[in-house]
């Protein structure tokens, strides 16, 4: 195996985290993890000479928070029935998800050296049968969110108020697909309080700006009228991400609380116009290429990896 600048060495975060339990990390730790993820994403895509670094970097902080602090999951038992589910509906951000799963120890970090190559378990887009930790096969936009709705329905049917949660990460360009709106409809219709969609809103798609190619806004108002709880945050600010997901957590667990607790929680929810028995929509404002100065808000890095020279510069910034 070629050990050049693109080579991804084993990284041990030296964290002892029980991902099956409720937990809280400090923001500094999350930032360090996200930095490692970014380095891996850039090396892996440059090494593969293909892949989607821009959208991977915009989703990195969200994914880091979800896997390291929010979702209950189990790297020792990826198919654990009571795990929370995650669907990367914008499947092209796979390199970021793979990096995170590797850092959670679902598989060796060095596997990222094989990204997109023949024989690798790391396909161009997520494959639930090849990669441990992937809950749903995605890649063709507009389908993952519907599968997420089905997961939330199925889990609720099996576990009632104890149903695990389902989080879907949706691309903003992806919101142009009609099936996304069918899925929004369905989630609201079935009052899926254990279902949360996070919009990775970097406002860039392959051909340009989302609002110029085919406008999707105003997303907050649209989702509100669809019957979702909605909140807008900075998708790179861990405090804001944590807060938004804590609201979703309260909605999702609402039926488990005592009457006393429900009253307390309702007070918090009301401040944000959140209601129980509803799905949650988090509009996360993000920056495509986030973390590398010359990649930020540059549409050309949607589906184009860095040259080795640019990779060197980028890694310098991520030290």
């Amino acid at each position, binding site marked *: 195996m070629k050990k050049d600048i693109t080579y991804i060495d084993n990284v041990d975060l030296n964290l002892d985290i029980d991902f099956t339990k409720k937990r809280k990390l400090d923001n500094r730790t999350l930032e360090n993890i996200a930095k490692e993820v970014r380095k891996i994403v850039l090396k892996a895509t440059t090494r593969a000479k293909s892949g989607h670094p821009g959208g991977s970097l915009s989703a990195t902080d969200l994914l880091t928070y979800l896997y390291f602090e929010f979702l209950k999951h189990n790297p020792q038992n990826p198919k654990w*029935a009571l795990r929370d*589910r995650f*669907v990367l509906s914008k499947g092209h951000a796979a390199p970021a998800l793979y990096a995170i799963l590797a850092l959670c120890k679902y598989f060796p970090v060095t596997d990222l050296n094989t990204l997109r190559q023949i024989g690798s378990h790391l396909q161009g887009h997520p*494959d*639930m*049968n090849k990669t441990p930790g992937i*809950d*749903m*096969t*995605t*890649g*063709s936009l*507009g*389908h*993952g*969110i*519907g*599968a*997420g*709705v*089905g*997961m*939330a*329905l*199925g*889990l609720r*049917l*099996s576990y009632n108020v104890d149903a695990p949660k389902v989080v879907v990460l949706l691309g903003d360009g992806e919101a142009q697909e*009609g*099936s996304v709106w*069918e*899925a929004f*409809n*369905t989630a609201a*219709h*079935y009052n899926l309080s254990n279902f949360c969609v996070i919009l990775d809103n970097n406002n860039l798609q392959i051909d340009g700006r989302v609002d110029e190619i085919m406008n999707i806004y105003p997303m907050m108002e649209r989702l509100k009228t669809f019957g979702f709880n909605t909140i807008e945050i900075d998708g790179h600010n861990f405090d804001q991400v944590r807060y938004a997901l804590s609201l979703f957590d309260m909605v999702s667990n609402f039926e488990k609380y005592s009457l006393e607790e429900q009253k307390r929680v309702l007070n918090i929810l009301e401040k944000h116009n959140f209601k129980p028995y509803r799905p949650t929509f988090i509009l996360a404002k993000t920056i495509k290429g986030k973390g590398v100065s010359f990649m930020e808000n540059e549409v050309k890095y949607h589906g184009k990896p860095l040259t080795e020279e640019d990779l060197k510069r980028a890694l310098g910034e991520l030290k």
Partner: protein
Amino acid sequence: MLKTSLREAYAKALIELGEKDKDIVVLDADLSSSTQTAKFKARFPERFFNIGIAETTMVNVAAGLATTGKKPFVSTFAMFGTGRAWEALRQSVCYPNLPVKLVCTHGGITVGEDGATHQACEDLAITRALPNMTVIVPCDDIETEEVIKKIYKLKTPVYVRLTREKFPRVFGKDGLLKELFNIDYDYSFEIGKAYKLKEGKDINLITCGLTTSQALLAAKELEEEGISASVIHLPTIKPINKESLLKALDPSKIILTIEEHSIIGGLGDAVLHALSDQDFKIYKHGIKDEFTISGKAWELVKYFKLDKDGIKEKVKKILKK
């Protein structure tokens, strides 16, 4: 001739399965009274999900349900379930190889009056092209019930094509086999198996769905005219058990496939593919490469020469008699 509803047999089997397995869930897209899944809803309302007129999402939701251990049956008209939702079927069901059972009614021209927009004549072609997919076309109510109960155990995707129109019963003591040929056929469904229903020396008719009963009727009359046709019922379009098919074929070396589907990509092409290394002369009969038309179901069957007279005409032409 007893005509039976495949849709009703489907609903009956679903409810039976629903009784014994609480993981059975059913999804429909606003056609539950037509597909008959409304009967399942009436019995198990909490396990029935109407997704509205949103077939793509219905299939995606079914895939999600399957990942949580549920056993989803998905129903709508064949046109929309396989056509509109095809990409969801490919990306979310077949690629991840999830146990979603797509059971569509209103396949083929026997949809009748609604016309070409609703007559799915390509559904077998487009589902058969999907890796991991099994494709089955039952011919009567008895077979439909057997098929549903058997595929329910499969951990992979299946497409079953049913119809709006009632079809003559083929199997059982009041079926066509008994009525026409006094045959007590010992039938049980197996995936891939070819069923030789009637022996014959001059030509092998291979059929599925509607055309099985029509071929039996044709074979009976041909017999009286001195032509001996075998009838081989091949309900599984994919995967075909080649050995079973070769065993079922009579030695005439002439095959005519007959299907209520386009001649592109359906039963005929599946047989051609299975027997491509064999020494047979294979003719295909079905809907030509054209869009179909409105009309009463059985008038259309006659119009497209899929009834016994149309089949007889085709056989005589091939045998130059």
